[in-house]
């Protein structure tokens, strides 16, 4: 199954608890994209990837345009690395109501000058990190490190 020209698959039964969003797993973000395409680490399962998305929707970890962001914690409260460039925050670009969502590891890779938006439209929206802190998805220390682009 694919969306448009991009191969991948959508799990037939998985919907987010709050909004009922569908989710599509793009091959290009799972080891079959180019070197400039963000990649999930192989050990992150589809269930875990969807869990990040579900939590992001449930906790409303959204920027002002509706993009969602999420993290995956381990049993000790440490933020797991989810991307091949050691990313710890995933981004889920906002979709039309009829389309499935998808996501990819996003941050704390520093902003690329070619694709970033200039301040105050920050690469990783500060209000989203703040929201993660407020809903206790992050500790204060993790928040302080991530906002600086450091590993948490």
């Amino acid at each position: 199954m694919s969306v448009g020209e991009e191969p991948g698959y959508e799990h037939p039964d998985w919907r987010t608890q709050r909004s009922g969003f569908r989710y599509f797993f793009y091959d290009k973000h799972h080891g079959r994209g180019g070197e400039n395409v963000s990649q999930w680490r192989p050990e992150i399962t589809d269930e875990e990837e969807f869990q990040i998305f579900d939590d992001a929707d449930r906790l409303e970890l959204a920027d002002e345009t509706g993009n969602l962001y999420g993290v995956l914690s381990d049993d000790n409260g440490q933020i797991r690395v989810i991307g091949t460039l050691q990313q710890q925050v995933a981004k889920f670009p906002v979709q039309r109501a009829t389309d499935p969502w998808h996501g990819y590891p996003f941050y704390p890779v520093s902003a690329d000058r070619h694709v970033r938006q200039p301040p105050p439209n920050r690469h990783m929206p500060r209000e989203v990190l703040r929201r993660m802190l407020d809903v206790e998805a992050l500790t204060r220390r993790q928040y302080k490190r991530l906002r600086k682009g450091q590993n948490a």
Partner: protein
Amino acid sequence: MTATIKLQPSYRYPNEDISWAGECTWTGGICFGTDDGNLLLPAYDGAKPQSWLINRDTVNGMAFGTQFAVASSPTEVTWLPRGGELHVLYAGGAHDVVALTPTLFLAPLGPHGILSLMRDSDRWRVGIGTAKGEQTFIYRLCPLHPQTGRHLVAGAGRTKGLVLYECDSLGGDFTLSFRDLPDYDLVDVCHLHSPNHPCAVAALASDRTLFVTPDIRKVVPIQLTVSDLEGTGYTLKALGSHLIVLTSRALYILENFIEKFAKGELQAPSKSPVYTLPVEASEVYVAYDEYLLLEADDAIHALRIKELLDSAAQSNSERPTVFKAGQFAGEGYGSTPFATGGSTLSESEVMPAAVNALESPVRHLDLATSLC
């Protein structure tokens, strides 16, 4: 640099969230970067605290020229003439910025390479070096002593292990090399300032593994595992003869680590105390070869290393830990030149891996009684 300054025990600013701390060339004291992008100078010599906007995002690194400062953030690298307004040098994010000289600066750009900034008269020469064909993530940089007129800079790579950057005195003719450390996510690197080993460095991985080499140019590092370290590795600093490790769980002081390293004692079993300060700090900085600047939730705590160790010596809360050293399997240096080319590195002189276990007393310190 020998410290003659006396820092306050703590620095708090109700309306500012400090995100960086370090030495200030302008004042001879310390200064701060903030979440709102400000450069903050504490009160000094009777002067009131001062603040300037130096970046439009959270400051994560700062370095000083004589009459200006350079600041990095996740979205841009900027400079600020003293008393002037900020200017953007690079419209993308960096993880830090370091000074090689008062006019030459480098900033690690993560997967986008290394940013070189040269102040030349009244202009800036800006360049970016990348490793062609390699997926790299350059996270931290640490200048070493210049060798034969060339600058040497060690780096922590989150995907390609140790990084070695060389350039001439003007920042040109540079070379970027990697010593691949498969499966290790290096999050910091520091110069060991060992008189007999001018190119000695240590690096820290996020899993708390330490790597040490007496010469980053030629010698394969040995791997050290300190069993009592806990949490996610954040930061590695050298302070005097001691090695400082910050993790998500605590601050650790590996007492006289550098001295033992210089004597070759890390190659054989020996005792080495590790002091633990169980704090939740998001970063640690060093200042004037004497102070640790601990970034806590709501303040910067200035801790004098001598007083910390004196306090530790009086502590009764000791328990044993183990240093496990050795068993490193790394490839020799590969040389990946920048587009402008440069000399390549010679083949590695491989130092035999050491396997040893060091019994080390660990003392736990209490922050409240350790603040100087």
